């Protein structure tokens, strides 16, 4: 029997983990990457791995995703992607926010995670970097992980090379060729590549690739910017996020830098990797307001990546409707580093006949059949903010 030929488009964390898992499952795997591994959104994030989410189904997937990360070094050939424990601090400045999140505590308890609502004093004691800034009403603190995204992507890429997986850099997937409603090949910038199955892990380019096979996925990219300071000795263990939309986040990396960002409510949709001055000024002003002790640090670089948003801010994982053998693995909506590895693993299991894991139920591509892209409230990462009743 000939081995199943799987072509994976995109050598980010999703595509590379899918490649390693499919190879382990006995498939013949080719990965196409138009740039370099991690050159898209996998190389432009801060690698926060957290279990605490605002809905039960997302919390359950995130628990599985965190567990997968804790075991990932075997898949990466013994390389540890610089995974280290942190506290995820969702910091609140409004009484309504605290009341809303307080109602989620029973759900967090039921799912077995340690997310708890803390009051002002407890927040300032546990997140000392906020002292001297605007006084928070409280926070939700939970144990979490930070992963160094480059270490993870490089570990996966080097492991793929070690195992003889064909990762083609500088080769662009131009389209998916179908016959009688099934995938037969991928047209690339370097010729045609026959395939029994194609995994679309091209995140911000996934919509265009799916369209070549006549599949409509209602996603759109949104620019998200970040800036980084020079390295200082460790001063904080927490990954801080301000729950208010249009505000921001910051944490210290293992290299000692503070990375920080803030969203712009007026950001237009579209693939834009330019750095902007308003972003730098807004971020510095936010830190002055919330964590003024950081004001003596120097910014060394700012950069931009994108969130590929779906209408419900959850990813697309599974077989598209209408084309047999074409699978989506994208639309991470800002949770790619967290969710992509476990989703890639479970998708490969599904493709090789292991059945669909119930955890993946909310991510079925078919839920968007006939749904149009929402250019909605863009900075609302949580997809509902305070108004969403639990």
């Amino acid at each position, binding site marked *: 029997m000939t081995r199943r030929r799987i072509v994976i488009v995109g050598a980010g964390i999703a595509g590379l983990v899918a490649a390693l898992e499919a190879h382990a499952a006995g498939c013949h795997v080719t990965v196409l990457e138009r740039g370099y591994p991690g050159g898209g959104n996998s190389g432009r994030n801060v690698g926060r791995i957290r279990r605490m989410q605002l809905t039960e189904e997302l919390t359950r997937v995130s628990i599985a995703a965190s567990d997968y990360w804790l075991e990932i070094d075997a898949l990466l050939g013994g390389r540890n992607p610089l995974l280290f424990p942190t506290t995820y601090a969702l910091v609140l400045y409004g009484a309504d926010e605290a009341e809303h999140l307080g109602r989620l505590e029973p759900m967090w308890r039921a799912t077995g995670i340690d997310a708890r609502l803390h009051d002002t004093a407890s927040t300032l004691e546990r997140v000392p970097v906020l002292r001297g800034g605007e006084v928070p009403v409280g926070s939700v603190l939970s144990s979490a992980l930070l992963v160094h995204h480059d270490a993870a992507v490089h570990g996966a890429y*080097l492991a793929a090379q070690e195992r003889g997986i064909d990762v083609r850099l500088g080769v662009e997937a131009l389209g998916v060729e179908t016959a009688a409603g099934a995938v037969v090949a991928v047209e690339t910038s370097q010729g045609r590549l026959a395939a029994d199955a194609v995994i679309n892990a091209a995140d911000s380019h996934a919509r265009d690739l799916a369209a070549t096979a006549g599949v409509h996925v209602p996603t759109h990219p949104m620019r998200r910017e970040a800036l980084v300071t020079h390295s200082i000795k460790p001063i904080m263990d927490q990954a801080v996020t301000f729950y208010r939309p249009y505000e921001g986040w910051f944490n210290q990396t293992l290299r000692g830098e503070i990375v920080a960002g803030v969203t712009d409510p007026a950001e237009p949709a579209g693939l834009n990797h330019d750095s902007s001055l308003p972003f730098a000024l807004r971020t510095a002003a936010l830190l002055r307001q919330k964590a003024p002790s950081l004001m*003596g640090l120097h910014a060394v670089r700012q950069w931009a990546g994108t969130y590929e948003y779906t209408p419900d801010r959850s990813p697309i994982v599974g077989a598209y409707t209408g084309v047999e053998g074409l699978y989506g693995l994208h639309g991470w909506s800002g949770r790619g580093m967290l969710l992509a590895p476990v989703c890639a693993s479970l998708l490969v299991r599904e493709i090789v006949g292991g059945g669909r894991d119930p955890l993946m139920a909310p991510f079925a591509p078919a839920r968007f059949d006939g749904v149009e892209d929402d250019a909605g409230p863009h900075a609302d990462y949580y997809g509902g903010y305070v108004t969403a009743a639990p």
Partner: protein
Amino acid sequence: MSGPLLGPSVSGRALASGRPATGRSFRLHRPRAGFCANGTCGQCGSDPATGEALCCTPADRVTPSRIDPLRALGLPAERQLPWFWERRLLRPRALRGRYLSAIRSLSAAPGLPAAPAIAAPAHRTLEVPLLHVGDPDHADPGAMVVDATAGSTAFGVYADRTVAATAPGELLEIRCERLVLATGAHLRLPPIVGNDLPGVLHLDALERYLDQGADLRSVRVAVIAPAERHAAIASALEGHCQVVHLDPEIPRRIGGRGRVQSIAVGSDTVACDVLALALDQPAVELALLAGARGVLGEGPLPVVLADALPDWVELRGRAAAQPALPGCAQQRDAFACPCEDVRVRDLEAAVSSGLRDVELIKRRTGAMTGPCQGKVCQGAVLTALRDLGVEPRPMTPRPFGRLTRLADLAVAHDA
């Protein structure tokens, strides 16, 4: 952002005292001093109270600490590949992640940094027909000048021909029709052993320390500069420091413990305290941010140049030069990137592990990602990679074109 410095800086006085190290590298905790003396390279450390670079901080304000308690951690780490932790340190599995936390808490700062006591700068937007950044002597009449001597410093070029600059009490957002960049040059770090030792600096930096008023009369200086400049340099330094060596050729190696103590030239050893290098890397970072294409130049010690300048941007003076630098052998133990402690051999290891793209190697090793953002090291890193068969494509230009304190960016909220 304060005005020009009057009187010696912390770094200048440290150099005069014979103990030039005021900073330390982040990864290996190696003693460091600045290459630039103008706040570009980020090696000299910063004033804990204000965040200002020590080469721009008055000497009486800070006493730099001489002892780095974590050097003991750095010494064994120097013998390993920078990413040895991946397979060795982080085992057994049950303890995965705990080591990293332990190292973090071992090296943790005693408390939060002090916040500089300055008010939020005002955000001023202006439009000018001609903006001149850098040396005012090169400026056309009528140009608006942004330069440290004029009290302002440009840190970025953004969309719509917008240049951003910090000034005392102000953040300037300047839209211009034409932009002239006379930003001078940084040090092109030569890849020889000892190139990160405190006391190695750009000849411009030595001149800046003297201009600030540092008393370097007892300091022995070796100068590497083209032969045609020797007479002018000798007369300029006469009476200010002891020039013990003046040569166009780059020395074979730099010796010393914790600071420069000697250089090896041919079979001779010359004792000295400072190695001043007139090796220019044109300061093209703002031109690249404005849209010029970065290319690695030619020659035995190539530098990064700006090609295909947009028609509204002009480089002038030394920023526009294509310096012909003397050759030197690439030494494996030399630092290619001092900010992140990346040696030439670390780049070799990254390439032989299977990474063959500048962006991958940059992320893998950290090379060019530290405070200088490639200004001092990019030529050295790209040359080493070129010699290893990797296409030496300069990294994506991004702001900040210069280290910029958050306090100077945190403008009072725009409505």
